[in-house]
């Protein structure tokens, strides 16, 4: 069978289709977005009626998937690592309810923070919730382990966390596909109270969850995803989790590592394998992308046993993504060097696109804020976060999805009046609406600059849940009609826009200035498709 050249993300998507999912639920977030996009554009997925519309946020996605699992069908949930914070309430409790139809939660971590505000390690969530974790090392494993995740989920009646990092998500390699499985028929849980987490039931279910842990650990011995590879040189033993295994192998001719290696891809990690390695070597090097979870586990707080090397003892940098060179240095191997970087190389940070409406919207905001002292703009997560950089330098915060409005309320209540919240349309429906309700109820003196570009821009232009609904939502939440203002962020309307924003800054209450203009990227894409359709139509006529 010929191989398919797929991103790690796409391999997971295909694995899920072939595992027989009936739905994928997600909110876009780099580096996880391409999984859902693959399913959305897959002909097979369409033929099988696999649900794949974007959810409003990761929590609604997780809960919708739990509903599908409750009804007996298989569901995949996808998010970036910080999305799991949003979904955490549902995620952690899903361990207590357990799964009926297979339920797999994919969380894509971003060590080195290529497109994120932190590098939290999702494996902690797995451990925290007593949910088993699968962590593929390569694209083929990403495909295979996605399928296995559903098998594991249904075998133990528990959700499974699939953990990847940016490097695997966005790297391509050849994948071999296997025969797909059918979707499940609807079947409700045999215990009708399985999902009712009243304390009395939850206590019982929690004990069931704890009791499953030993069997889950044993599964890690038989699944084939945790392997002990013997080596003759016992001066060192190496534990390589997920992707780290590739960086290890890269450093040895034909992948022949002289030391015993424990390749780990499934958690909870079997104690038997750890003990086998620990007993046969002098010291251990732990290679894991993300936090030093396994390292800390082995080392204990006091490190009284054998020497454990990794991020905590400085053998590997404490923060950031692994690579072959970091692993080589930890092993004491020679590292080749290239040329010195010339002084003529300057930094080229990302910036807003030419012609983007955010330039005009924040340009107008900057001018309207001139009469006031600085530091008043609490912002959010999206392309417009780039307005923090020169030349605009408009915003003073970017923390988590939706934090702009709520932080502005707090700042205003501290006396920073007026305070401004800058948020995008998709972030607004993700986590901004409840904050706006707070603002209205508290009569906070804030002005919300709602940048409505009709898309989820930063992640590449996915449909926004807010589309066509922004004014109605503001009204519904209770913002006064005369303080819901619409502007079109264009250079030629600059004076007019400054005036509108200035008026609302002076208003001692909640106002929302909606700056509406389509994202230039989605506009260009739409025009391209239109031109192509026109050409096709002309060709068929001819």
């Amino acid at each position, binding site marked *: 069978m010929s*191989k398919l*050249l797929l*991103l790690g993300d796409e391999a997971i998507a295909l694995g899920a289709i072939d595992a027989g999912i009936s739905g994928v639920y997600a909110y876009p977030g*780099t*580096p996880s*977005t*391409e999984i859902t996009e693959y399913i959305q554009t897959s002909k097979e997925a369409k033929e099988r009626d696999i649900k794949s519309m974007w959810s409003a946020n990761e929590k609604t996605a997780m809960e919708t998937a739990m509903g599908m699992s409750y009804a007996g069908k298989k569901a995949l949930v996808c998010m970036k690592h910080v999305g799991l914070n949003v979904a955490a309430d549902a995620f952690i409790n899903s361990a207590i309810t357990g799964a009926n139809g297979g339920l797999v939660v994919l969380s894509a971590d971003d060590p080195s923070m*290529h*497109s994120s505000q932190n590098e939290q390690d999702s494996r902690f969530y797995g451990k925290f919730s007593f949910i088993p974790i699968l962590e593929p090392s390569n694209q083929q494993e990403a495909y295979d382990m996605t399928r296995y995740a559903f098998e594991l989920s249904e075998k133990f009646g528990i959700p499974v966390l699939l953990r990847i990092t940016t*490097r*695997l998500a*966005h*790297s*391509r*390699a*050849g994948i071999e596909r296997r025969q797909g499985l059918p979707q499940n028929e609807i079947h409700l849980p045999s215990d009708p109270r399985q999902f009712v987490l009243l304390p009395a039931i939850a206590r019982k279910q929690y004990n069931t969850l704890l009791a499953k842990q030993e069997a889950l650990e044993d599964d890690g011995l038989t699944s084939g995803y945790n392997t002990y590879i013997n080596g003759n040189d016992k001066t060192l033993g190496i534990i390589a989790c997920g*992707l780290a295994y*590739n*960086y290890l*192998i*890269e*450093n040895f001719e034909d*992948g022949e590592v002289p030391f015993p290696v424990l390749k780990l891809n499934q958690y909870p990690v079997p104690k038997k394998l750890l003990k086998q390695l620990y007993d046969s070597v002098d010291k251990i090097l732990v290679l894991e992308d993300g936090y030093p979870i396994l390292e800390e586990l082995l080392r204990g707080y006091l490190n009284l046993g054998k020497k454990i090397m990794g991020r905590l003892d400085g053998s590997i940098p404490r923060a950031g993504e692994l*690579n*072959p*060179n970091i692993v*080589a240095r930890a092993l004491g191997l020679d*590292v*080749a*060097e*290239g*040329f*010195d*970087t*010339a002084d*003529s*190389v*300057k*930094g*080229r*940070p*990302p*910036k*807003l*696109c030419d012609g983007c409406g955010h330039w005009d919207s924040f340009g107008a905001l900057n001018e309207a804020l001139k009469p006031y002292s600085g530091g008043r703009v609490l912002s959010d997560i999206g*392309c417009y976060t*780039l307005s923090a950089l*020169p030349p605009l330098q408009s915003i003073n915060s970017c923390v988590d999805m939706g934090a702009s409005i709520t932080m502005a309320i707090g700042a205003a209540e501290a006396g920073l009046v007026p305070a401004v919240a800058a948020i995008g349309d998709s972030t607004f429906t993700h986590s901004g609406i409840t904050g706006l309700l707070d603002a209205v109820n508290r009569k906070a003196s804030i002005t919300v600059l709602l940048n409505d570009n009709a898309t989820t821009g*930063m*992640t*590449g232009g996915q449909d926004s849940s807010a589309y066509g609904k922004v004014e109605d939502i503001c009204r519904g939440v209770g913002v006064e009609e005369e303080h819901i203002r619409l502007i079109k962020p264009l250079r030629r309307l600059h004076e007019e826009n400054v005036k509108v924003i200035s008026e609302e800054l002076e208003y001692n209450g909640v106002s929302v200035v909606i700056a509406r203009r389509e994202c230039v990227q989605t506009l260009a894409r739409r025009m391209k498709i239109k031109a192509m359709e026109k*050409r096709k139509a002309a060709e068929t006529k001819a």
Partner: protein
Amino acid sequence: MKKDIILAGVGGQGILTIATIIGTAALSEGLQLKQAEVHGMSQRGGDVQSHMRISSKNIASDLIPEGKVDLIISIEPMESLRYVNMLHKETGWLITSMNPFNNISDYPDLEEVLNDIWKLPHYVTIDAEKVAKEQGSVRAANIVVLGAASPYLDIKFELLETAIKNVFAKKGEDMVKLNLKALRAGRNYAKKST
């Protein structure tokens, strides 16, 4: 056979198109392939790169180790220099367009950039926009650079041509023709200049 390549440029310049063409050609030759891409935030006018590894044997790491890169292929001169710390000191080649993409306030003198490139032992610098324009459109500049890199790729030239036909088929016959011409023009330039 083993080639470790860094593709470099600025977001939106078309390095992923080059990657797709090389990848398609390499697969049709039955080679193994790994290619790490940049998606997300950095795509907005920032520097972008892709690690592309082709080999007749299994490839372990998605990332190329430092000092082991055989080929830097860049659509922008300053961007080509960003990765020379990865380039193999004895055998590495740098192939780049000479056309600057100036979207930052402290972009250096082009002469300074080119002089730094010309200090390297093996390089091809090409006015890709001029060559592309001569073939019909400046939009094919990325494919001109690919053409200039083609003598160093160890992939049959006909396979690159076939890959271009496949990749651009959706965009119409004119685009296929333009890019085939751009590929050949880039290749001829590189052969003449070295």
